[in-house]
């Protein structure tokens, strides 16, 4: 089923999402991948604050190619989400509500999704040029020294994704 949703993706929003739903996401989301997740986790361990407001946040697992002059961003497709499995449950327990990536998640992440009424979306891997068209703003929030792995805050408009794991833990990949 096609659905149009806005961020922040709250419990009320995830209540209406089922595995297999095709969604178009609009609003502010955050971009972080391996190295940024490692740093955020280390910050938490040291008792420091996270660089992004985590409550009801949507994190897109992505590392874009550089933007040309006058463009918002370069190619911007999802990266493999499983590499963030080690870090995701902690962030979900702190309030993160949605993840966008591609590929399988482990049991710890699925349990954390159920526990926190969260959701995991997949975007189409390797369609980075197409997906970049849905990004209307982009700015670096922190960890600029990580290059392509810096944390970004971006605005998306009708960003296409598919609900792979819904808040009840139903997993679209398992149905294949």
């Amino acid at each position: 089923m096609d659905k149009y949703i806005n961020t922040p993706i709250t419990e009320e929003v995830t209540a209406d999402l089922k595995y297999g739903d095709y969604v178009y996401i609009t609003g502010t989301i955050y971009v972080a991948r391996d190295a940024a997740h490692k740093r955020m986790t280390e910050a938490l361990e040291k008792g420091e604050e996270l660089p992004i407001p985590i409550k009801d946040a949507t994190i897109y697992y992505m590392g874009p190619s550089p933007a040309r002059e006058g463009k918002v961003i370069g190619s911007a497709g999802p990266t493999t989400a499983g590499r963030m499995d080690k870090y995701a449950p902690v962030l979900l327990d702190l309030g993160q509500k949605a993840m966008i990536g591609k590929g399988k998640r482990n049991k710890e992440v699925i349990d954390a999704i159920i526990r926190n009424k969260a959701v995991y979306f997949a975007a189409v891997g390797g369609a980075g040029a197409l997906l970049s068209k849905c990004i209307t703003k982009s700015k670096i929030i922190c960890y600029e020294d990580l290059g392509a792995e810096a944390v970004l805050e971006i605005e998306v408009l009708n960003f296409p994704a598919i609900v792979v794991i819904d808040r009840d833990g139903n997993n679209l990949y398992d149905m294949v």
Partner: protein
Amino acid sequence: MIRTINVNIVTETIKDMCIESNYHLSKDMDQALKKAADTEESVLGKKILDQLQENLKIADEDKIPICQDTGMAVIFMEIGQDVHFEGGNLEDSINEGVRRGYTEGYLRKSVVNDPLLRENTKDNTPAIIHYTIVAGDKVKITFAPKGFGSENMSRVFMLKPADGEEGIKNAILTAVSDAGPNACPPMVVGVGIGGDFEKSAIMAKQALTRNADEYSKLPHIRKMEKEVLEKINAFGIGPAGLSGSTTALAVNINTYPTHIAGLPVAVNICCHVNRHTVRIL
């Protein structure tokens, strides 16, 4: 007769290849994806394959990489033994081409200097370079930037000779099945059978640079390529792993003599953005 080539030509050529291969798929891959969009049986699978067509069009028109993972630069250098390079160190000139290509082409820099310390080199160097010395006075350069979503799902199996053909097929099918949605299907499957541990892996990588519409020249291997491709597509993993009849676009197998005690099988998986460009100097 010795032919002299200035290394600056190598640098310029590599730079152009970095940019070209990340903005445009080669003709064989482009056609394989078009064909898949026409024949895919699942509705969602077809929708995704149509998006990939649109993605290729945008990449071409807007000069933006097809995929944000513009890869680690993998380069096969087949150097004629009658060639002499002048003007500098060959390996440095290749890396300079990568540096310029990834910087001037707005390509992502995805290389870290040390696998544990993990500091980004900020220019995508160093490249992974495979040299072979061949007859003649030409230099054949194959540029195949490799994304790591699919690279991470690749495997080497050290089988026993008794495992035979069935064991090989099972190894390939296991690797593909385990890769599932992580490797961004529809994928291309490069396989190296024989040689030793590292030879099989290098053959598997090289098999990915073979055109998607070409089969092995060996009849028994050609038969296996077709059979394994059919079995992979019968899995139903489909485009983006969301079900469908297109899980792989091609299975390319290379072989080499091996030891009486061994049967190495390497499976190098590539996503649908299987980039490979060839230039001859």
